[in-house]
C-alpha cells in the first residue's frame, strides 16, 4: 500500500494534537493516582464542563481564549468542590472504591450538563483558520497551537514538581505519604492542590479541543477509554510515562485511521493489552507501596 506523504504529514500533526489532548487529561488522572491512590474518572466531567463553558463564554463574549480560560477555571472550581465534599471522605479506601464513586460523579455530572445545556451538540468556532505550509501540506495552525499548549503544560508541571518546594513535597508524598505526614506537613492540602490542578487541566483540555469536535454531554464518556489507555500504558503515577504514551496513542489513532479506519479505534487497546502482558504496571508504572 502506498501512502500519500502529504496525508501522512497532516496525519502526524493530527496525532500530535490529539495526543496533546490525551496528555492534558491523563496527567491529572495519573497524578491523582500517584499521590492519593484514587482513580478519578470525574476528570472526564471537568473536561466536558471546560468545553461547555468555553462554548457559552465564547457565544456571550465572542472571545474564544477567554472561554478556554473560563473553562479551565470552571474545571478547577468544580474539582475543588468535589474534592472537598466527596473525595476527602474516601482517600483511605481502596482505589476501586474511588473509581466507582468517580464514575457516579461523571454520570451525575453528565445529567447536570444535560440539564443546563440540553442534549443538542454545540459547535465551537475554530479561533484561527490559518493554515501552515509544511512540505506542500496544509497544516491548520490551530492544531499546532494545541500541541504547543500541551508542551508548555508539560514543562510547567515538570518545573512545578522539580523546582518548587510544594511540588517536591508532592513528589515526596507520592514516594511515601506517611513520611511526609509524619513531618507535620499538611498532606490534605497537597491532595486538594493536586486534584484542582488535575481538574483545571481537564477543563483546559475540553476548552481547546472544543473547536475540533461537537460539544455534547457524552463527550467525556467517548474520551474515557482512550484516556484510560494512555494512563495504563504510561503507568499510573508517572508523568513522563503519561506523556510518552499519549504521544504513542495519538499517533496510533491518527496514522491507524489512515491505514484502516475501523482498526484505528482498536489498535490502542491491543497495544495496551500487549504492554500489560509484558509489564503489568505499564511502561513507567511506579512501584507502589501498599497503604
Amino acid at each position: 500500500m502506498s501512502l500519500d506523504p502529504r496525508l501522512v504529514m497532516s496525519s502526524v500533526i493530527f496525532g500530535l494534537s490529539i495526543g496533546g489532548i490525551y496528555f492534558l487529561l491523563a496527567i491529572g488522572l495519573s497524578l491523582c493516582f500517584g499521590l492519593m491512590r484514587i482513580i478519578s474518572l470525574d476528570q472526564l466531567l471537568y473536561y466536558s464542563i471546560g468545553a461547555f463553558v468555553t462554548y457559552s463564554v465564547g457565544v456571550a463574549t465572542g472571545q474564544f481564549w477567554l472561554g478556554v480560560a473560563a473553562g479551565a477555571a470552571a474545571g478547577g472550581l468544580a474539582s475543588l468542590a468535589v474534592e472537598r465534599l466527596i473525595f476527602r471522605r474516601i482517600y483511605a479506601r481502596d482505589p476501586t472504591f474511588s473509581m466507582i464513586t468517580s464514575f457516579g460523579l461523571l454520570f451525575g455530572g453528565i445529567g447536570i450538563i444535560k440539564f443546563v445545556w440540553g442534549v443538542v451538540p454545540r459547535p465551537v468556532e475554530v479561533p484561527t483558520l490559518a493554515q501552515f505550509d509544511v512540505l506542500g501540506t496544509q497544516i491548520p495552525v490551530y492544531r499546532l497551537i494545541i500541541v504547543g499548549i500541551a508542551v508548555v503544560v508539560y514543562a510547567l508541571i515538570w518545573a512545578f514538581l522539580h523546582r518548587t518546594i510544594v511540588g517536591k513535597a508532592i513528589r515526596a508524598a507520592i514516594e511515601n505519604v506517611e513520611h511526609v505526614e509524619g513531618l507535620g506537613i499538611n498532606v490534605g492540602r497537597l491532595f486538594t492542590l493536586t486534584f484542582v490542578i488535575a481538574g483545571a487541566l481537564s477543563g483546559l483540555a475540553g476548552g481547546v479541543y472544543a473547536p475540533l469536535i461537537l460539544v455534547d454531554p457524552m463527550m467525556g464518556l467517548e474520551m474515557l477509554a482512550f484516556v484510560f489507555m494512555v494512563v495504563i500504558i504510561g503507568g499510573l503515577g508517572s508523568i513522563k510515562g503519561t506523556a510518552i504514551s499519549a504521544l504513542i496513542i495519538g499517533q496510533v489513532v491518527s496514522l491507524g485511521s489512515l491505514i484502516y479506519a475501523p482498526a484505528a479505534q482498536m489498535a490502542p487497546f491491543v497495544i495496551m493489552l500487549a504492554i500489560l502482558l509484558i509489564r503489568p504496571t505499564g511502561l513507567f508504572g511506579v512501584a507502589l507501596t501498599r497503604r
Partner: protein
Amino acid sequence: MTAAKSLASRALSWWWGIAATLLATSLCAVLLPTPFMNEVMIFAIYVSGCNFLIGRLGFISFGQPAYLAIGAYCTAFYLFYVGTNPLVGLGVGVLGGLLGAIIIGPFFVRLRSDYFAMVNLALAVVLFYVTQKLLVSITGGDNGLWFLTQMQSTPLLDLTAPAQFLWFAIIVATAVTVMFKYLDGTIFGACCLASRLNEDKLQFIGYDNFKIRLVAFIIANTVTALAGAMYAIYFGFVSPEMGSPSRAAEPVIVTLLGGVGTLAGPLIGAFAYTGMKDVISNLIGNWELFIGFLLVFIMLVADQGIWGTLPPAARALLVHLRRAAGRARN
C-alpha cells in the same frame, strides 16, 4: 425477643431465603407486567456474575458488557446462520462465554485490581468496535441481527413466548443463585474470600491465588454470557448497543445497589434499578443525573446496598417499636 430473632435468622437462612424469594418472584411474575419481569430476571442473572467477582474476589470489572456481548452474539450467530432451536442457541452462547473467559482470564486475573477494572472496560470498548465496525459483514453492524421469527418453539416452556420465557428465566435465575450458594459453602468459596481479604496469607497456606481467581473469573463471566444469551433469545435480536461501554457501570451499580456479595442482592438490585429506571425516565427524563448521584450516595453512606442496609435498619426499627410498645403498656 430471642424467639423473634431466631425466627428472623431462620427466615434469612439461605434455603428458606431462596424458597421465599422464588415465591415472591413468582407472585411478581403473575402481578407485574411480563416484559418488566423478564428484564428484571435476565438482568439479575447478568448482575450475579458481577456480584460474584466483586463480592467474592474483590475484583471490580467495568467490562461486563463485553462478556454479555460474547454470549449474546454466539447465540445470535447460531440462531441467525445455523439453527432454529433457542435452547441449542443458549448452549452455544454459554459455551462461547466459557471459551472466551478461559482465553481472556489468564491474562486479566494476574493484574492488580485497579488495572483489572480498567482493562475490562477497554475490552468492552474493543468488542463494541468489533461488533459495530470491524465485522460488519457478520454482525450486521449497527443494524444488528434479527432472528425473532426464525426461532422454533420449544416443548414444555416455549421460549419464543414471553410469558413462558419468564418462567424459564425464573428457573435459570434460581439455578444460578443455588449454584453461587453452593460455591460459597465449598473450599473454593472459602479460598475466594480469603484471596479477597488477604492475598499473602493464602499463598502461605498453599493455595494458588492465580488458579482460584481464574476459576472464579471463568464462573462469573460464563454466567454473564448466559445472561447475554438469554437477552438474545428474549429479544430475538442483538446489536452492538447491548455491549455498549456506556452501560459498563450498570452491573457494578446494581451490584452495589443490591448489596455486594449477598445472594439476593442481584435480584433486589435488578428489581430496584429496572423499576427506578422506568419511573425516573418517565418522571424527570434525566436518568444519568439520578443514577450518578445515587451511586455516589451509595458509596458514601450506604455501601452495604439495599439488602445490607435495610434489614439492620428494620431490625433497629423493630426494637424501637417494641420498646415503645413496652413503655406504653407500663
